[in-house]
Every structure is written in C-alpha cells, then in structure tokens.
C-alpha cells in the first residue's frame, strides 16, 4: 500500500505557489475543504485561479481567500451571495469566468479521465458558446469543451484511509470526486481518517490513486447556508 497521510493542513498545502490554478470541491458551503482553504489563506499565496462551483460567502469558504485578495480569477457556475466578491468583480480586481454547472463538472471529470475534449449541448446558442466549435450529433448542436488543468485540487470527504481512498456523505459529494481525479496534486481532508483495510473496497468513491495527500481535518464548521425546516406540530 502507498501511504498518503500527511500530518495536517499546513503540510498538505506544501508546494502551493503564486499564480497557480486550484480546484476546490463543494457546492455552496456543503462539502468544502475548510481546512485546506484556511491553510492556503495562511500561506498567503496570491494571483490564484480558483475553479469551484461557487465562491463561498463573506467570511467563509472561498470568501476567506477573496477577503485577503489572493484570488485573481474565479471559474464557477454560480457566484451567489458574497458582497466582497461583488465589490472586487465590479471594480475589475477579480476576473470571473462563468461556466454551466454540468460543463464544469464534466471538464473536471475529463481532466481526471484523460479525455482532453468532449462535446456537450449545454450553452449552444448562448454567449458560453462564443468562439467554440459547434458540431451536430443526431441533428442536435453541441459545443466542444476542454478538460481543466489544475495544479492542486482540494477536496473534502467524510471518511478516508491511509491509502487515500475516499468516501463521501450525502450531497457533500458533489464536485469533490471529479476534482480529486483532476488535480495534478490532490489534497483530501476527511472527517475521519482510518487505517487501510477498514473501508469496504466496494464502497470507495475515489480510489486512492487519485489522492496524493490526505489528513484528518482539525475542525469542520460545516455551516448551513439555507436552514429550511418543517416546524414540528
């Protein structure tokens, strides 16, 4: 077995540098790599291109890297509720590339599957398709999209083992598996790190081969964005 365990988030982000492209798993604040974000912030690297479905909120998630102006460019599908983000974007400090969510997911998956490019119907006839090759399949127009290229991928899983195998929980899975596959260096933080052999090999969502470094997160806040409930009678 090949050992992937590093002691903590600080050790896990070793090698990050200015102007790198980084992927961050998560959907909204669900399943985000909280500990890695804090460690990237602590390292102070600048000029980052961040690929993440969303951009966090003020004071949490990727909002923490926006606050410190470490991000040069965001590649996302929805950049939601974030005043600092809006301010930086409108002032031209922050570059933003918006991509359909399914295309974002598939471009990550393509990177991790060695598929350099693929055709998708999403975005045909919209500004997303501008400058892209269009081709019809079964009479329907599709556009050519390319795999991402990321120096680091930071993902968050529920359980992981020493071999880097990952298991996710609920909808906290989202973009994490494909980003784990896509990173040149993939860093996984988990709620529970177990010895090799304790996870059911049938139940692994991301085989350890895709994960270069794994650690148990010191703390997970797991903030809820929209607390919707049914009142008890």
């Amino acid at each position: 077995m090949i050992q992937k365990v590093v002691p903590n988030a600080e050790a896990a982000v070793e090698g990050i540098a200015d102007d790198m492209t980084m992927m961050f798993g998560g959907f909204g604040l669900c399943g985000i790599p909280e500990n890695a974000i804090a460690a990237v912030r602590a390292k102070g690297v600048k000029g980052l291109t961040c690929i993440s479905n969303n951009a966090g909120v003020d004071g949490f998630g990727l909002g923490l890297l926006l606050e410190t102006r470490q991000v040069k460019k965001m590649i996302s599908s929805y950049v939601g509720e974030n005043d600092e983000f809006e301010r930086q974007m409108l002032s031209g400090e922050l570059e933003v590339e918006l991509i359909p969510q399914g295309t974002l997911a598939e471009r990550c998956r393509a990177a991790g599957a060695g598929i350099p490019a693929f055709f998708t119907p999403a975005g045909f006839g919209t500004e997303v398709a501008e400058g892209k090759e269009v081709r019809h399949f079964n009479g329907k127009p599709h556009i050519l999209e390319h795999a991402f290229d990321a120096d680091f991928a930071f993902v968050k899983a529920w359980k992981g083992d020493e071999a880097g195998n990952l298991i996710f929980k609920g909808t906290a899975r989202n973009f994490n598996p494909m980003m784990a596959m896509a990173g040149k260096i993939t860093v996984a933080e988990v709620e529970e790190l177990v010895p090799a052999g304790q996870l059911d090999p049938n139940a692994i969502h991301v085989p350890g081969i895709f994960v270069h470094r794994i650690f148990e997160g010191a703390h997970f806040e797991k903030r809820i964005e929209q607390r919707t409930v049914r009142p008890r009678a």
Partner: protein
Amino acid sequence: MALDKNGIAQRIAQELQDRWYVNLGIGIPTLVANYIPEGIDIEFQSENGILGMGPFPWEGEENADLINAGKQTITALPGASFFDSATSFGMIRAQKVQLTVLGAMEVSETGDIANWKIPGKMVKGMGGAMDLVASAENIIVAMQHTNRAGESKLLPACSLPLTGVGCVKKVVTDLAVLAIDPLRGFVLLERAPGVSVEDIVAKTAGRLVVEGDIPEMKL
C-alpha cells in the same frame, strides 16, 4: 383572477405523469412538489447530487451534508441515492430526467429562454440552467406573464442574453397556460380563472395563437 405563485405551481403539477423523474428549479418551481396528484409516483432530482429528494427536515434535524441545489436543507426518501455532479449532469444530458421546471425572465415565441443575466447588473451565474435547458426533452417555464414594469415576458425574441435556444415546450404564468409551437408561436391552451383572452392577448408581446374556445384552468 391571476394566479398566485402557489396557483402556478398547482397548475404545473397537473402536468406530472406517473413514473417521471423531475427537476425543479428555485422559486415557484420548488412549490410544485407540494401539489403532486394522488396516485402519481414522482422522484425529484436535485442537480447537486440526489435522487429521491424529500421535504424539508423537521426542525432540529437539518443536516449540513444534505441540501438541494437551492442550498436548502432537505431530506432523502427511501430509495434515494447520492451521486457526484458529473453523474448528476450525466443523467440530465442523457435525458433520464423527464421534466424540468424552471423560472425565466423572458421566453421567446420559438422557445428560447433567458433567465440568468441582465447586462449591467451583477451576474451571479447560470448554475445548472444551461445544461438543463439544453438537454431536457420537456421543459416547463413557471413565471409571471409580465415583469414589474408591466411588460410582457413572452416575446417575439428574447432581449436578454440567452440561457438556451428553442427548448421551452410550455409556459405556465399567472394568466395562462401556453404551448410553444416553433412554427406558430405561443399557443394559448388555458386561461387562469376569471382572466379573459383579451387580457392575455394584451399582455403577450410574442405571436399568440388563439384557436376556438379557451377553457379556464381547473385547479
């Protein structure tokens, strides 16, 4: 009388067919889940990675790891499954989801839809809408017939940046149910209770086909 949001949702729910997988957008579409007809089995897909989505959790039982695409806390029903975003949009593109209901700012008489961007305003992004409208076989738009300025949202052509081209099949507004026939335009199918054909004609900027008697919706 024009329908309220719940009325629109209730009317859309009549479109549901047994054994359909359905994706509901944020806003009015979400309310459709409250009006599933008796005896109809539906499974809700949320594109962030769940099939078999249930209602909101009981107070105190909300779980940060269990949300829908609107980032609201939800529950999972028996038979539910979780999956990653690539698989989720895989099933959407492969047309395994039979119906998508979503809101819109504008719909054109050829079925174009604009619902993600207003030039000059802060753009939040298209999320999964472009993937959904490009792939779904069956798209129903739920929206108000006119905008706040009283201008029609059913247009000859969209003025806003498009989300998708020629994809909308049906529109349910506070005033009417309309099918889209790409050759003829908006085909008026039903009126909201008490709303006149004249009123709908006046508030529809795109080509409108009115054939025979237009029945009132039954809610």
